[in-house]
């Protein structure tokens, strides 16, 4: 899949850089110029390609960011501060500082009960925190209700997929459309005032369904779809709103491996469309594959952040997943006694 998403090369930029960087021309050893396919995948020897792809830009930006929890990022789209949510005596979420890099794919991982979904709910207004503030795209999002959050461009999906079972797949999609004059009670009685817009939305919906391989199902009830197809539909529906930030809550849960691969492709292609992605996932390989940045939550806190390749080696992450004494043989009585002594 990575090959499909190889950064497009901007030839003009490349040449420009060429001139700046190299005083000594190497034209004599260059490959023939017309072979664009080879250009795209392999730079001529000794040359760098400049990519305009968001993926590379974000990777470049994040390369200089330190791998520590609550770190500041160059261009954050969502900034959360001191968000605390308690359920009775239990603190579900206690996030000191958290930023999401614009145009990046940020993975939110952590063991079950770490507060990932609660954090999603808080950010999107479906739940109200005990304290804390957060800004989305420069706007204060405290006390904003879920529908306004979605209209502002932060759209989420649900861990337990929510499709409208007794509406057709296409109707499900059309419900996601942002501009909908026909949804006013009075105007809806006069089809002339909304038919044109409806047609446009329909085309957009069909294009998205085509991309998500659901076009053949468009007239079926959404309730007749399989679990994986519902995940796809929910994601496609969220994209109808043209979100700035899409928050996917376990998009891969219960999806078969073949479909998983195409979902991953979709997520990567979202980034290239200019959408910022935040997703919760348990499959570490998937995370390593597509994420630009990984944030690890455990017991409501952010315990680690970093590049996907290195973050799993962080001792805090190992503790979160395996327990603090993962490397100790607890079957050995003498070791246990020693531990008790230390505690």
């Amino acid at each position, binding site marked *: 899949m990575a090959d499909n998403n190889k950064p497009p090369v901007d030839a003009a930029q490349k040449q420009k850089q060429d001139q700046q960087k190299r005083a000594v021309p190497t034209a004599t050893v260059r490959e023939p110029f017309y072979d664009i396919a080879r250009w795209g995948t392999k730079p001529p020897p000794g040359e760098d390609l400049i990519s305009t792809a968001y993926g590379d830009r974000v990777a470049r930006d994040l390369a200089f960011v330190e791998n520590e929890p609550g770190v500041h990022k160059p261009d954050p789209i969502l900034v959360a501060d001191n968000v605390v949510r308690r359920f009775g005596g239990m603190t579900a979420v206690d996030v000191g500082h958290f930023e999401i890099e614009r145009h990046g794919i940020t993975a939110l991982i952590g063991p079950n009960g770490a507060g990932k979904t609660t954090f999603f709910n808080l950010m999107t207004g479906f739940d109200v925190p005990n304290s804390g503030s957060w800004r989305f795209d420069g706007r204060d999002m405290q006390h904003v209700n879920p529908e306004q959050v979605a209209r502002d461009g932060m759209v989420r999906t649900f861990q337990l997929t929510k499709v409208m079972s007794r509406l057709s797949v296409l109707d499900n999609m059309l419900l996601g459309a942002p501009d909908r004059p026909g*949804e006013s009670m009075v105007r809806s009685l006069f*089809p002339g005032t909304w038919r044109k817009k409806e047609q446009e939305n329909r085309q957009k919906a069909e294009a998205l369904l085509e991309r998500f391989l659901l076009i053949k199902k468009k007239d079926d*009830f959404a309730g007749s779809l399989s679990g994986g197809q519902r995940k796809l539909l929910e994601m496609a529906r969220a994209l109808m709103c043209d979100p700035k930030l899409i928050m996917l809550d376990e998009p891969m849960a219960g999806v078969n491996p073949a479909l998983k691969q195409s979902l991953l492709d979709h997520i990567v292609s979202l980034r290239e469309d200019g959408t910022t992605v935040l997703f919760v996932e348990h499959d570490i390989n998937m995370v390593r594959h597509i994420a630009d940045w990984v944030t690890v939550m455990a017991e409501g806190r952010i315990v680690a952040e970093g590049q996907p390749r290195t973050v799993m080696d962080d001792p805090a992450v190992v503790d979160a997943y395996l327990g603090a004494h993962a490397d100790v043989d607890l079957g050995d009585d003498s070791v246990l006694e020693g531990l008790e002594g230390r505690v």
Partner: protein
Amino acid sequence: MTIIANILGELFAPTTAAYALAAIGLNIHFGMTGLMNMGQAGFMLLGAYGFAITQMHGANLFSSVLFALLLATVYALLLGIPTLKLGPDYLAMVTLAAAEIVRIVGRSTSMTSVTGGSAGIAPQDFTTQFENLSPLPDGTSTFLIWTYNNNIANSWWLRIVAWVLVALCAFLCWRWFRSPWGRVLKGIREDENAIRSLGKSVTKYKMQALIVGGLFGALAGIVFILPRSLNPDSLGRTVTFYTWTILLLGGAATIMGPILGSCVLWVLLTAVKETMRVSIPPTVISSNQIEALGWVIVGVALMLLVIFRPQGVLGNRKELAFNG
């Protein structure tokens, strides 16, 4: 012959039309939006009071109807503001209780000067203007096998107006049903939170649905009292439950379902009662018992319908296959 005329007369009786209107309103509540309104009779009674009381005090017909609709709107707002943000069961409880409150306040002795107390309001106090508006000549007319008065009480004029109203409301409902507005309502019926996550103000849509359905209910109340007197007890809980029966019988979330359901229920009921009246001698079963037994038989028939055709007469079975 009179029996057949009576039975088939129910097909287009004003009461059938009134129930059809109420069921269309309930269809917008329940069939489209999924709101459990257990007090449609409350909307009807309030509409009826609004119309009859203003008529009694000499308001013109148009402003009386407008006042009835206004009352229903205010009532819907009062019910909706505290409950629509809560789960569906709360709305059911509140509407059921509120409808009873309307009825009990209406029939209380302290309100006798306004609402006429438990005796209600006599027809001559509120039907005159409506009857005077009729373009039909005085006297009675016979059409095919039916003979009714042209203008007075259970008249041809009332039938025409009532069914024109039903047609109008069904048309509105059809337009809404197929519009993006209707689609949002259906989406809310399926999953509120999903609709919320797509940036739509769920409470606003639910309120609109509650008001529109309530307005249809108020119209139904007016049509309901025109051929008889306004008696608060004749618009009690049972009316709500008949309306629900009609809706489920015809098929929720269909356009013609409520109308068909109303026709089928009342024709069936009259048929059963009339047949028993002529075929069973009064020494075996008295006419009071026939009244009750009629409901028992219709009730059993409805139970069978719900068991073997749960989607109603016009409903789409496929829709029932996906619950939740």
